[in-house]
C-alpha cells in the first residue's frame, strides 16, 4: 500500500528531476525509486490489512502480484536506455513519470477492495498507456495506434462502468466482499429477481476487463496498438498491463462472484477457447517479430484465463507463476528486438521483421542466446520457466472435474504445439538463416538485464519451487 503513495511522489519528483540539465541521472533515479517501492511493498508481507475504509486490501497474494508488476516495471525501465538521451525530441522525465504513475494504477488494480478503486486504477493505467503509445509523435503508426487505443479503451471503460452500476443495482454494494454477500442475500430473498441486473452487470464488467487483457473477441485493437507503439512501451503493455488486468479479473470473479460461477464461467470457456485459437493461429502468419509478439500476448492471455476459470485454491500460485514466467520472457524478447531492430534500421525506420534477426548469432551470441531462451520459455519447452507455467496451468485444468475443461485442454494442447512453430521462427532466423548483423555494443546495464532475465528463466525452469512455495 505504501508503494502507491511512494510511487506517486516519485513520479512527481521525476518531473522535477527533468528540470535538471543532466538527463543521465533520470534512469538510475527511476530504478532506485522502483526498488524503494518494492521494499515498501514487502512491508505488507503477512499482514492482512484493509486501508482507508476498505478501499484497498493487502495480503500475500497482492504483495506477490505487486512484486511481479514492480519487477516488470524495473526491467522495462532498465532496458529503456534513457530513451535515447542524446535525442532532443525525447522527454525522458515525462516518460519515466508516466511509467511510475501507471505502475500506481496497476498496483491499485491488484489490491482494490472497492470497485471505485478498480475503476480509478484502470483509468490511470489506461490513460498513461494512451499517452505512451502515441509518444513517438513523428511516426504515423504510433499516432494511429494511440488514437485507436484511446477510442477503444474509453469505450471499454464505459462498458466496465455500466457493469459496475448494474452490479450495484443488484447487490447494493461497491465493496467486493459486500457484493459477494449481496449476491448471496439476493439469491436467498428474491429467488430469480436478482437475475437480469446481476447477469448483465457481471458480463459487462468482464467484457471491460477482458478488453484490457486483449482476450478474443475483444482483442482486435491489440496487434495494431502493440505494433504501432514504441517497442519499449509495448513491452510494458504486454507485461504490466496484462498482469494487472488478469489479476483484477481474477480478484473480482473469484471474490465477488464465486457463487454464480455458471454466470461467468460458461461464457469464459468460449472466450478462452477463442483467445487460444485466434491468438496462436494468427501469430503463425505474421512476418513481423513485433506483431508476432502481440499475437503471442493474446494467446498467453488465454492460458492465464484457464487458471482463472479453474477456480481452485492453487489458482493463486499458478497465476502468479505463469505471469512471472511470461513477463520475464517477454521483456527479454523485447529487449533483443529493440536493439536489433535499431541496428538493422533501414532509412531511419527500425526493421522489426523476422529478417532483421537473420544471422544474429554470428556476431552477437549473447543476444541470440537470450532470444532463444525467451522464445523457448514462451513456447513452454522444459527446463525453462514457461514450461512449469504451462505445467501448472494444465494441472489446474486437469483437476477440475467439469467436462468443459477437457475441451479446453484439448484446444490448449493443440495450440501450444502451434505456438512452438512460430516461436521457433526467430530462433531459425538467428541461427540458421544467412545474414549479417554487425556487432551491437550493449551498455553494461543492458547486458546485466539480459543475463539476469535469461538466468531467471532457466533457474525457474530448474527449481520452480523456489518461488512456487512463496506464491
Amino acid at each position: 500500500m505504501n508503494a502507491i503513495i511512494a510511487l506517486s511522489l516519485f513520479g512527481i519528483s521525476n518531473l522535477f528531476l527533468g528540470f535538471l540539465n543532466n538527463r543521465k541521472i533520470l534512469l538510475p533515479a527511476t530504478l532506485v525509486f522502483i526498488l524503494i517501492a518494492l521494499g515498501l511493498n514487502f512491508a505488507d508481507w503477512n499482514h492482512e490489512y484493509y486501508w482507508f475504509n476498505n478501499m484497498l486490501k493487502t495480503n500475500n497474494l497482492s504483495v506477490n502480484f505487486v512484486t511481479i508488476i514492480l519487477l516488470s516495471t524495473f526491467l522495462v525501465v532498465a532496458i529503456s536506455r534513457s530513451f535515447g538521451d542524446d535525442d532532443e525530441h525525447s522527454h525522458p522525465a515525462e516518460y519515466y513519470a508516466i511509467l511510475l504513475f501507471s505502475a500506481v494504477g496497476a498496483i491499485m488494480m491488484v489490491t482494490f477492495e472497492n470497485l471505485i478503486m478498480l475503476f480509478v486504477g484502470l483509468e490511470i493505467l489506461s490513460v498513461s498507456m494512451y499517452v505512451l503509445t502515441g509518444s513517438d509523435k513523428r511516426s504515423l503508426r504510433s499516432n494511429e495506434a494511440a488514437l485507436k487505443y484511446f477510442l477503444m479503451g474509453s469505450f471499454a471503460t464505459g462498458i466496465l462502468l455500466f457493469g459496475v452500476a448494474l452490479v450495484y443495482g443488484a447487490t447494493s454494494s461497491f465493496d467486493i466482499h459486500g457484493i459477494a454477500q449481496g449476491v448471496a442475500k439476493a439469491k436467498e430473498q428474491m429467488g430469480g429477481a436478482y437475475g437480469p441486473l446481476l447477469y448483465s452487470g457481471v458480463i459487462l464488467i468482464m467484457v471491460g476487463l477482458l478488453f484490457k487483457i486483449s482476450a478474443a473477441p475483444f482483442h482486435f485493437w491489440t496487434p495494431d496498438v502493440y505494433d504501432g507503439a514504441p517497442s519499449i512501451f509495448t513491452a510494458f503493455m504486454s507485461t504490466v498491463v496484462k498482469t494487472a488486468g488478469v489479476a483484477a479479473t481474477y480478484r473480482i470473479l473469484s471474490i465477488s462472484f464465486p457463487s454464480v460461477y455458471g454466470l461467468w464461467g460458461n461464457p469464459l470457456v468460449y472466450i478462452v477457447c477463442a483467445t487460444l485459437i485466434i491468438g496462436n493461429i494468427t501469430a503463425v502468419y505474421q512476418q513481423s517479430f513485433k506483431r508476432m509478439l502481440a499475437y503471442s500476448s493474446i494467446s498467453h492471455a488465454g492460458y492465464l484465463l484457464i487458471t482463472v476459470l479453474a477456480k481452485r485454491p492453487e489458482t493463486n500460485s499458478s497465476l502468479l507463476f505463469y505471469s512471472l514466467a511470461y513477463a520475464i520472457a517477454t521483456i527479454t524478447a523485447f529487449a533483443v528486438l529493440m536493439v536489433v531492430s535499431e541496428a538493422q534500421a533501414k532509412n531511419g525506420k527500425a526493421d522489426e521483421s523476422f529478417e532483421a534477426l537473420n544471422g544474429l548469432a554470428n556476431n552477437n551470441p549473447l543476444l541470440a542466446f537470450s532470444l532463444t531462451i525467451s522464445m523457448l520459455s514462451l513456447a513452454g519447452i522444459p527446463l525453462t520457466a514457461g514450461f512449469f507455467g504451462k505445467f501448472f496451468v494444465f494441472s489446474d485444468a486437469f483437476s477440475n472435474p467439469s467436462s468443459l475443461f477437457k475441451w479446453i485442454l484439448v484446444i490448449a494442447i493443440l495450440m501450444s504445439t502451434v505456438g512452438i512453430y512460430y516461436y521457433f521462427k526467430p530462433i531459425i532466423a538467428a541461427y540458421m538463416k544467412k545474414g549479417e548483423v554487425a556487432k551491437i555494443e550493449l551498455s553494461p546495464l543492458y547486458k546485466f538485464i539480459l543475463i539476469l532475465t535469461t538466468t531467471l528463466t532457466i533457474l525457474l525452469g530448474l527449481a520452480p519451487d523456489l518461488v512456487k512455495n512463496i506464491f
Partner: protein
Amino acid sequence: MPILSVLIFLPLIASLVVAFSPDQFKAYFKWFTLGVTAIELAICIYLYQNFNHDVADYQFLEQLDWITLPLGNLGIGSIDYLLGVDGISMPMVLLTGIVMFVGALSSFQIEQKERGYFSLYLLLTGSVIGCFMALDMFLFYLFFEFMLLPMYFLIGIWGGPRKEYASIKFFLYTLFGSIFILIVMIALYLSVVDPVETAVRIGLINDVSEITPQIITEVQNLLKDLKIPSEQIVHTFDLRFMPDAGNFLPDSWLNILSGTQIFSFSARALAFILLMIGFGIKLPAVPVHTWLPDAHVEAPTPVSVVLAGILLKIGGYGFLRIAYPIFPEVATEYAFVIVAFGVLSIIYGAFNALAMNDLKKMIAYSSVSHMGFVLLGIGSLTSEGINGAVYQMFSHGVLSAMLFLLVGVLYDRTHDRRIDSYQGLANKMPLYTAMTAIAFFASLGLPAFSGFIGEVFTLMGGFNSPLIPRWLTAIAAFGLVLGAGYFLWTLQRIFFGKYWVRQFEGTLEDLTFREKSMLYPLAILAFVFGIFPHLIFDLTNATISELLKLF
C-alpha cells in the same frame, strides 16, 4: 560413487567447457569430445559388467529430492531426481555409449562452427543417456524433451539444403507427441500416491529407510478406505510406484476401478492411446513416420547415426518403461491394434525402401520397417516377443549406425546419394563393398548376425501370442522377404557390373583409417551379438519375466 549421475553430468559439464573455451582450442574440440564419449563408453561397459543378471528390479539406484510443491488441498507434489537401470534400460545405455562414441568419431568431418557443434553433441549425449536411466517420469520427460533441442540445432545448422524444413518438422512432430505424454504424465501425477513418503507424512514411520512391504500395504489400505486426509497425500512421478494399482487414489481418473469416461473412452484407455501416439511418433510407426526420412536426408552423417541409432529406440523404450507396465489391461485389450500398426510399418516401410532412389531415404525407410518389428514384439506380450523387441532395438541401433556411416562415406567423396549414380564400385572400393555387404546382410536378417535374432524372436513372439491372429504375423514375416529384396537389389545396383559414377571425375578412394576404425568394430559387434545372443538376453530376461507378471 554415483556412477549414473557421472554418466549424465560428465557430458553436460564437458558441453559447457566446450561452449566457453576460447577459439584457439578449436582444433582440440573434437578430440575432447571423443575423449568424453570414450569415458562414457567405458563407464557403460563397466555398468554392463557389474549388472546383476538375476535381479529383476532396478540397480545402481540414486535418489535425491528435487522439487517439492505444496498443492493446497490436493496434498504435496514431489519430483525426485531418481536414476536406475534394469534389464530393459541396460542394453539401451550400452547402445548409447557405443553409438555416441562412434558418432563422435564420425563428427571429425565437421568443419564449420565446431564449438557449437561439439557442445551440442555433448549436450545430446547427456540428455539421451539420462532419458534411459530416469525413473521419475518427470525427469524422463525433461530429458525426452530436452534432447530435441540439441538435435534440432544439429540438423538445422549443420544440415543439408532443406535443413530448416526438416528440422522444424522433426521438432514439431516429436513435440506434438510429447505433449500427449505430458498430459498423461499430469493425469498420472494427480492419480498416483507415493506410499513411502505418505507413510512418513502420516507418521507410520519416521524415516524413508524404515519402509517395509507391510507398511506399504497398510498405506494402500488406508488409501483405499479414504482414511488419509488429502493434505497429507504425497503425489509422485515415481515410475516404480505407478504399476501398482494400489497406489492410485480411489476416486482419481486413472484408477482402474473408478472407470472414468472421457469422450466415451475409458480414461485409462485414452491415456494409453495418448502414450502410444506420443512414443509411436518417436519410434516412428506408420502413419506418423513422415518426419524421419526428411530429417535423415538433411542431417549430417553423425547426426543421422545418432538419430537412427538411439533416438528411435526411445520410442520403444517408452512403451516398455511407461505405457505397458502402467496400463497392462489396456495393452492386452489393444494388442491387435498395436501389432497391426507394427505390421503396417514393416510392410509400408519395406515397400517404400524398395521404391527409393536416395540411399539415405532407403535406409530411413528400412529403419521404419525394422522398428515395426519392435512394435510387433512388444505388442505380442510374450516373453520371446518382448525380449526379441529389446534385442531388435539394440541390434538396429548398431546396424543403422553402420548403414548411415556407410552412406556418409560415399557422400563425402561424391556428394551424391542417388543409387542409380553408381555402378560397379566393388572394383574400386573392395573394403567399402565388404563392409556394406556385411551391414546389408546383417540388416536383412541373415543368420549369424544380430538382425536375425531380433527379427526371429519377435516373429516367434507374434506366432506364439494368443492375443493376435496368426495371419498378421505371417504378413510381418513377408516383410523379411521385402527387406532382402531392397537390400540385395541395392547391393547389386551399386557394387556389381562395370565401374561407372555419374558426373564424378576423380578416383574413389577406399576406406580411410578413421572410417575403418568406426566400421570394423560395428561389424564385429553385429557378428558377436549375432552369435552370442545371450549377451543381451541375459540382461533382459529377468526384468521382462517380472514385467509379464502384470499381464
